[in-house]
């Protein structure tokens, strides 16, 4: 990795101002994808702004929402009794990201800011219609994800938390890439305040997407059989040495069916 200037500000405004003032400055959250990128010398930041001292971790559960601080680790979400009670599917998703050690460093904010097309969290955010809260504004999930590694975040904008409306039913099923264990196909289904929604990660060439046909089917009839009858076109899906677009399309159906069954 190239050397850089390291900053660990204690105030959000300061962090945001550094990032806003220097387009080559990069934010560091848990580092689980950013550090490998730096090691491959794919990125040459002038400054690395460590967000660890901003007090952005923590979980708040009200009757209708679960708010998770951006720097909350996957392990914390997975182990949270509050999250398990309010949105068990979210705790379970967090507990299956990467491996144990990765979960102790990786954060929800880092995952969403990076928007890796095979990450798990984007599926939960999109399917539940969560709100991304930044230092500047609140961004609805439908407006946030803008393609592979692309988001609505502007320069100098830092995610501070994510607010999930508590769904009546939700579940996530992941078919992990056998090697990397990232989602080769991950499907999150939810029925809640934001409607009946299905989000697919790992499969699409443009990252996470909503599966409208399945949503319609489930809105009419929330059952595994309802999604089993929906065919997913292979167009626009990823193809690699582990899975063709056709196989991914098939897995979307299987994972969706199993997710609906698990959601009850």
């Amino acid at each position, binding site marked *: 990795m190239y050397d850089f200037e390291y900053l660990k500000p204690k105030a959000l405004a300061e962090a945001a101002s550094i990032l806003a003032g220097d387009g080559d400055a990069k934010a560091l959250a848990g580092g689980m994808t950013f550090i490998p990128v730096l090691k491959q010398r794919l990125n040459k930041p002038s400054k690395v702004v460590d967000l660890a001292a901003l007090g952005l971790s923590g979980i708040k559960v009200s009757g209708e929402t679960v708010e998770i601080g951006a720097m909350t680790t996957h392990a914390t979400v997975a182990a949270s009794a509050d999250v398990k009670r309010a949105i068990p599917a979210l705790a379970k998703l967090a507990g299956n990201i990467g491996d144990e050690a990765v979960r102790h460093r990786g954060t929800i904010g880092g995952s969403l800011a990076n928007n890796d097309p095979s990450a798990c969290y984007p599926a939960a955010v999109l399917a539940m219609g969560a709100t991304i809260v930044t230092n500047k504004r609140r961004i609805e999930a439908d407006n946030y994800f803008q393609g592979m590694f692309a988001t609505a975040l502007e320069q100098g904008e830092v995610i501070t938390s994510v607010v999930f409306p508590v769904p009546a039913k939700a579940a996530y099923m992941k*078919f992990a*890439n*056998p*090697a*990397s264990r990232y989602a080769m196909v991950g499907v999150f289904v939810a029925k809640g305040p934001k409607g009946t929604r299905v989000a697919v990660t790992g499969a699409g060439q443009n990252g996470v997407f909503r599966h409208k046909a399945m949503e319609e089917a489930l809105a009419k009839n929330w059952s595994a059989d309802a999604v089993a009858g929906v065919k997913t076109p292979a167009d626009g899906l990823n193809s690699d040495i*582990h*899975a063709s677009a056709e*196989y991914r399309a098939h897995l979307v159906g299987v994972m969706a069916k199993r997710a609906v069954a698990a959601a009850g």
Partner: protein
Amino acid sequence: MNAPFEGIGASMKRKEDLRFISGHGHYVDDINRPGQLYAYIKRSDRAHAELRGIDTAAAKASAGVVAVYTSADLTGIGGLPCGWQIHNKDGSPMAEPAHPVLASGKVRHVGDPVAVVIAETKQQAKDAAEKLVVDYKDLPAVATVTDAVKPGAAQVHEGAAGNVCYDWEIGDKGAVDAAFAKAAKTVKLDLTNNRLIPNAMEPRAAIGEYDPTTGEHTLYTTSQNPHVIRLLMGAFVLQIPEHKLRVVAPDVGGGFGSKIYHYAEEAIVTWASGKLAQPVKWAAERNESFMSDAHGRDHVSTAELALAADGTFLALRVKTLCNMGAYLSTFAPAVPTYLYATLLAGVYKTPAIYAEVKAVFTNTVPVDAYRGAGRPEASFLLERLVDVAARDTGMDRVEIRRKNFIPKDAFPYQTPVALQYDSGDYVSTLDAAMKHADWAGFPARRAAAKAKGKLRGIGMSTYLEACGIAPSKVVGSLGARAGLYEVANIRVHPTGSVTVFTGTHSHGQGHETTMAQLVSDQLGVPFSQVEVVHGDTSKIPFGMGTYGSRSLAVGGSAMVKAMDKIITKGRKIAAHLLEAAVEDVEFKDGKFTVAGTDRSKTLSEIALTAYVPHNYPIEELEPGLDETAFYDPKNFTYPGGCHVCEVEIDAETGVVSVVNFTAVDDVGRVVNPMIVEGQVQGGVAQGIGQALLENAVYDQDGQLLSGSFMDYTMPRADNLPNIKVGTETTLCTHNPLGVKGCGEVGAIGSPPAVINAVVDALSDYGVRHLDMPASPQKIWSIIQGAPRMAAE
């Protein structure tokens, strides 16, 4: 109270574990020498290109850089040698193109080293390497064996027409053709053996150091065989005589074959440290391991079996294309010939066998021995073919095996493909494996699985391998350019403790324990009083290293021979002290006793006398108790056994789960059952990896698509079941310990067992064969494409 049993047959805890478990293992990259510089290797990112020039000026001017070398700087340095010469069918020698230390004129695979940057820190070396400007002219590349032999294929080497390294044969073609002509049934199968990447957890590393006051070079390297490296690098590459070249292989974090070979980086750091008079360290990054450690397997074959009407095997015909990669690695030519085709008889009394093997060059990383080396390719081909033969002829797959086994009273058994098996009992391992695996109870388990929507299958392999390599005269006649004996030096110290110096090398096998048990057992010295030393050419007289499950069979036998010399000398000393005739002195349990009396001397008393020879037959006998032996084996050893695998397939996703695995092996005498169990489980893990997960994939342009852990799948804890291990023993008849070897059996026996189980699980879909790895996508495609024979 009896002393605790700690000899042959005891599950002693490993001596090496305390340092590993506490973080005090001593691996090459843990070593730092005063004034050490760091080397970074610039590697080709092209599969095949003319190397028209390298502009080093900016790199040389970069901060901290001490030197930048390209092939033009390596004057007077030889290429990397190949240790085995195969001859073509017509008797002419194989094509053996030069293998330069740094690419010269052309690059031939992604990862081919083109330059080395040496700097004060690793980061500086890497920073500078980015400033090297390499002028390539791309050439068409060829990555697979089938493409390499097509007319008009890109030529990897000028001296290898049609990319052929050799076109070799073994066996009696006439007899085989005749048997096929009159056979009641014939069975034919096309199959590939997938290419694998060894990926020992410790990346390769090397440190060169030069002492100008003595002229001595030292190389610390991640090697399975330091003396072999000293010989190859000293004699063929750098022209440094043995007495001025010390090679140290300290703790080594796994080898699996990939650390046998002499690699360019070893020569580079040794040469550069001499030139710069400063130590130079190189440590591979994982991506370099993927593109520079020798890969394994990569065969494409056609196999045909001729059978009599009752299922008796009459003849076997095999045609194999195998990949050598871009250059010949140290042992590469031997793997698909003498470690593969000679194994095609397996455990069966097939009377006629003929095999043709064509080895070809491609624009890929060199391919050489990887755990099992040739024998997994043979066992996969044969054990798949036998299952297919059973299926095609409607016979039971267990009965067809039993019918054709070499019976236990037929040993020594001469196969039609050169080897002579010394011992075995294939029925005993088959019966034991079927019992432990509850083969008989499988139909109920299949039905239970079906009830929950899963496809369950069971499969077996009854395999054989040849290891304990190897008799020097035999391998010499087959093209080896080295002997394959082993060396032991046993030093009984004045107080009776013992140091054993072995030419083998332990990198996970637990030799420090097993060999200490062996010496403890034979000399009657407490286990705690025996120390095993390996991995340093300045301490050990000589040795050929560890591979081919040879360390105990060959290295252990050398120890027995050296201990025999110790005992012979000890009896003379004891006879003198006890005033008895030498022939009346017996040695047992660490004591020299005059037969029929209670007059005795312990080994430590004899040792003390030998080193303080006041009352000593000094006229006839030298002082000291220190003996060296070279042992050249009389034959290979022949472990074999039966592996049974049970799988469940999720038909919706294609995911195969191994739910039960049972291995019952005949590894000869077992010295440490706990270690044997671990070795077998480890081999099975790699075998399951090959069968279900692992695949080195190149695209048509020679780019490695599976070049990192993000895309190359190795078995993890949750991919494996608990692996049940059992042993049934027949003793090796030609070495003094009766041992056969256990390091590779798991990787040799398991892949066909897994695939046979997968095919069995898919029996409702009309599947006859599938190649490895049985990935989810492959299984799903088969199920999608299959006629729905299972009406569900």
